[in-house]
């Protein structure tokens, strides 16, 4: 029988009170920490300018906050926060820009930073997760697919032991493409990172295609819509007898990996002959979801027209093709594009008649996917946008950091409503980068 004397009750009450006080004081402390160095007010949208150094080798990526896109001068000389990076960093921002989520390629970690307001380069590491064991690689790729989630993904394929399948007569059947996928949750209220459970499986192409030595060599740039995730990928080919790479191979169609989302089940590849090329891009988004849930997917390859196709309900729309190369009247290649709503997008592209993607022959086109128009904007020449990763809408304008090679540049504030090649406002000055550097976006 439990007898609680008044004395004991009193003691219990004191303990309970102490615990409550303790908790609340802890809570308070956490709140204080969340604020960091006097964080920005919740209603303030924080924007960032990103800069990459030595993108070819041991590269590093820097961030600084931008308060005014129209006035002033921006430079990374002795200013800027260096993201954790072993080879390159692949960053994204939370919807109000208070947090940056970044994957350290080859370090294999996902980092989360809070943007404080004590200086332009006031950022604090708030969380870190290590998805390397789960996904089996420190060289995965990272894409933001919604305001609350990023995807980590990799495909591996090898001629080495067990990587190539032969039938009982020792005939080449396929070179395996092993996919690995992991959902990474991003809590925009405190920057916390969470991890789902990894999914690993072989991704199959049509049998005859695989029997010809074609395999999936890279996967990236997914988009999520209506319970499906659409993954772009690159294909390569090996000689089925020597297993040597066939460097002249270019896909003769366009293909996408579709899975149920968020379960990451039911993987299958869909194809269309409306375009030829790869769908994974480089580091720039390749696919965007429109207001009605359609996915607009870029397809690009050297020597082939750059096109945007439409995906609905897990299928290519057989009646929709947007042909950028034809509309701008040039041979083009592109690494990705940006969507700003109402069918309007902006596409950085390289004029391949003037030089390869590694040369400063890049332009930006305003595209209207509904009315099938493209206007090459009247920007300064000598642009190199191969590494350009990201840009955002800022107060109704689409803003890019446009910095010609060897000269100072500016923020350009494009007016999505304008169809004019001069439909932009030239904003604050951005000091010229230098050999081996690139401004890689507005986040």
């Amino acid at each position, binding site marked *: 029988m439990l007898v609680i004397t008044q004395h004991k009750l009193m003691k219990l009450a004191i303990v309970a009170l102490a615990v409550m006080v303790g908790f609340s004081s802890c809570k308070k402390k956490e709140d204080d920490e969340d604020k960091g160095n006097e964080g920005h007010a919740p209603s303030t949208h924080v924007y960032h300018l990103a*800069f990459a*150094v030595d993108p*070819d080798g041991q590269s*590093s990526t*820097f961030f600084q906050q931008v308060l005014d896109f129209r006035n002033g001068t921006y430079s*990374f000389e*002795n*200013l*800027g*926060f*260096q*993201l*954790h990076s*072993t080879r390159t960093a692949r960053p994204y921002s939370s919807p109000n820009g208070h947090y940056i989520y970044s994957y350290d390629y*080859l*370090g*294999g*970690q996902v980092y989360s930073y809070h943007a404080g307001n004590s200086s332009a*380069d*006031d*950022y604090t*590491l708030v969380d*870190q*997760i*290590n*998805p*390397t*064991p*789960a*996904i*089996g*690689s*420190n060289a995965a790729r990272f894409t933001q697919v919604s305001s609350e989630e990023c995807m980590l993904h*990799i495909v*591996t394929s*090898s*001629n*080495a*032991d067990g990587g190539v399948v032969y039938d009982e007569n020792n005939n080449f059947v396929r070179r395996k493409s*092993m996919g690995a996928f992991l959902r990474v949750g991003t809590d925009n209220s405190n920057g916390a990172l*969470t*991890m789902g*459970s990894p999914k690993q499986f072989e991704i199959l192409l049509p049998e005859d295609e695989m029997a010809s030595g074609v395999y999936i060599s890279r996967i990236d740039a997914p988009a999520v819509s209506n319970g499906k995730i659409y993954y772009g990928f690159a294909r390569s080919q090996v*000689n089925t007898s*020597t*297993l*040597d790479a066939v*460097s*002249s191979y270019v896909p003769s169609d366009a293909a996408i990996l579709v899975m149920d989302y968020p379960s990451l089940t039911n993987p299958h590849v869909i194809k269309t002959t409306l375009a030829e090329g790869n769908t994974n891009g*480089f580091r720039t988004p390749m696919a965007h979801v429109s207001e009605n849930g359609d996915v607009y997917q870029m397809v690009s390859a050297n020597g082939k027209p750059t096109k945007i196709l439409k995906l609905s309900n897990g299928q290519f729309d057989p009646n929709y093709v947007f042909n950028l190369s034809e509309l701008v009247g040039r041979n083009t290649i592109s690494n990705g594009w940006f969507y700003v709503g109402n069918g309007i997008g902006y596409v950085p592209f390289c004029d391949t008649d003037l030089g*390869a*993607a*590694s040369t400063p022959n890049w332009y930006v086109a305003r595209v209207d996917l509904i009315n099938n128009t493209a206007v090459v904007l009247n920007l300064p020449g000598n642009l190199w946008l191969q590494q350009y990763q990201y840009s955002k809408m800022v107060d109704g304008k689409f803003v890019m950091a446009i910095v010609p*090679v*060897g000269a100072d540049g500016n923020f350009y504030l494009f007016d999505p409503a304008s169809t004019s090649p001069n439909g932009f406002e030239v904003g604050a000055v951005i000091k*010229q980068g*230098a*050999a*081996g*550097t690139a401004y890689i976006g507005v986040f």
Partner: protein
Amino acid sequence: MWNCIKINSFQRQVTVLWMVVLMVLGSVCHAQQLKQGTIYGQVTFSDGTPAADAVIYLEELKLTSISNETGKFSFKDLPYANYTLVIAVFGNEPVKQSVVVSSARITCNVKVEKATRQLQEVNIEAAGVKRQLEEKGFAVNVIETKNVELQSIQANELLDRSAGVRIRQNGGLGSQVQYNINGLTGNSIRIFIDGIPISSYGPSFSLNSIPNSMIERIEVYKGVIPAQLSDDALGGAINVVLKKSMRNSLSASYSFGSFNTHQANVNGAYRNDSTGFTARGSVFYNYSDNNYEVWGEKVYITNPLTGKVERIRAKRFHDSYNSWGGKAEVGFTDVKWADQLLLGVIFSDMQRDVQHGATMEIVYGNRYATQNTQQLSLNYAKKNFFIDGLDVTAFGSYSYLNRAVFDTVPYIYNWLGQRIDANGDGKWDKWASGAEGSSPTLQTSLEKNLTGRIHVAYAINANHRFHLNSLMSNFTRDQDDEMLPQIERDLMDTRMLNKRIYSVALESRFFDERVKTSLFAKQYVQDVRLKDRTKDSRTGTFVPFELSKSTRTTGYGIAASYTIVRNVMLVASAEKAIRLPEGSEIFGNAAENIDPSYELKPETSDNLNVGLNLGTFKMKKHGFALNTNVFYRNTNDMIRQGVPSQVSETYRFENLLSVISKGVDAELNYNYSDKVFYSAGASVFNARFNTEFDENGHRYYYYQKRLRNAPYFTANSNVRLHFNNVIQKESSVAVYYNVGYVHEFFRDWEGIGKNNKPIIPTQVVHDLGVAYTFPNKCVTISLDAKNLMDRQVFDNWALQKPGRAFYVKLNWKFI
């Protein structure tokens, strides 16, 4: 030998060192052989006062002794014979005296005229090797191993304490080492053993695996390199001079310490005095688990479900290093027709586990590497070859090196050495690539190296000496990897590199030896041949080709010293230095995605050094010396890996960069009465990137910025104390304490960004050691404590080196 002589001053030490070189350091403990006698002598002035510090040279055996305060000296264990002693007292002409050794104890008293100057000055004039090298005008550090050979200290640690030299290591025993001399590193620095490029010995003969008891001294040339060291070095050279014992000796040492580290070696030499037959050999064994603790940002375990990381202090669990090997030489020494003719064999074997990738956050549990080397060599040296004043040395070697990397196990490990099952499917998680490093590999490479070197020196007259030097090396490498498909294996090339370096030098002395100069020129010839199959990028077909390229280029320089007044010497040297492109840089390598770059030029550097050497100044029992060196280097056409294009994913090497580097290093030495030795050194340099535009005319943002990922301010302080008759009579104790300092530096270029830039932090490392030599002088026991404060130390970003460690070492001298 010196145990029987009381030495009281630092100068005498220097003198002894000189003596050491003269007699070519030999055994310390005497052999118990029959028919040997000892000369006991005394040098006195004509007025009967003892002549201290007289140098007594025994011509026939090339032995030297120095008289003590009472003028006494001795030569022990001399075979019965007739000998000639040459007695030199400073200020007088040397005196000769014959001695017959026919009994166990011979007394020999010598009278000399009273010297006109103070006797201590004898020692100053009898310059040590260090001083002799400095007098030639080169910016050189000479590191004597004598004082530390009984400690558990590696050659690399000695180098690291030297002003202007910085050793950067990735981890514990056996890990990769990078040499940095005043800012230049990599292929710009060449390592020599006895004047022969270390590459001809195979990598098992790295400085780490040479026990310091085998090393006579280490010479570090900063910037300007004498012609005798014939290789294409751009920024400096390290020459390790091994001991060449010609007397009977047998010694052994064994060291045991932290991280289950064992290091053992045995050295022996035998010479038959009547026939001149000589045999000498050494064997070494090194083992370490290297299981030291690491901690910090990159060391953690991961919660498999949440991915959250928990930082831990972890012991390295897959980092063991195991090497053993030996060296044997037989032949004849000090015979009529040769000072030295020796046939040598070197063999060694090494196995090393690999604990992690480029940073410590990717942990390995199975990857490992092995290598083994065999080398055959022939060495000939003769002074006064046919004619007086003509000295000849010749060296030839053939070496064979096998290397292999093993990485075929795909399991993922954490820092606790455990495998992981992150998704709970009951299977261990695997690397998607199928192996730890990247793709599974069983890569092997076989390197063969044929090296020949001839050095001829001729004394034209007393003041001019002419040197002619020729080095030829023929190098091939074959690679294979059975994990790769045949087509790729066939693509792996054979690289052939043939290098010839001819050099001439004229050493002169002017104005009563107050000015000494060395004028030299070097001709470099390189032939590179490559058998390969390249893939035509358009058609994808293979085109076999065989190509050869020959590069010829000339370098030259001068080194000079000027003794302004006694103990004040100005030294200066200048060189146009050359570094030839390597075979893989010129011809590319299909298997490594390197495109050929036939038009590559050699790297060049204009190097200038000016130094002031003061001392040693003596004030009673105190001695001071200060050496300073100011340098300037303008390096052009540095070979750098170019930018891979997005489409081809291959790259080529380019002559792109130039660097201007200025700096100063200084070393202060103090000693008190042979009991206290203190040295302090510091080096500061400013190496700036000096290429303004890249090949497309774009400006480098780091133009004129300090070089990234390189230390630029280092300092070292070392105190050593010697006591005699502690605990036991006739015993001796040596204690040292060393503090090394390396200032923090950025991993990436300065100038861009500010917050969160990766930094290799400032490091202060304290080491302490003590050695006790028992009265019989044959056994020494030493204790070493390294990184006493257990600091977290890094030489490279995020690669932690060992913390506090203790070692005990036993040395025996049997003969």
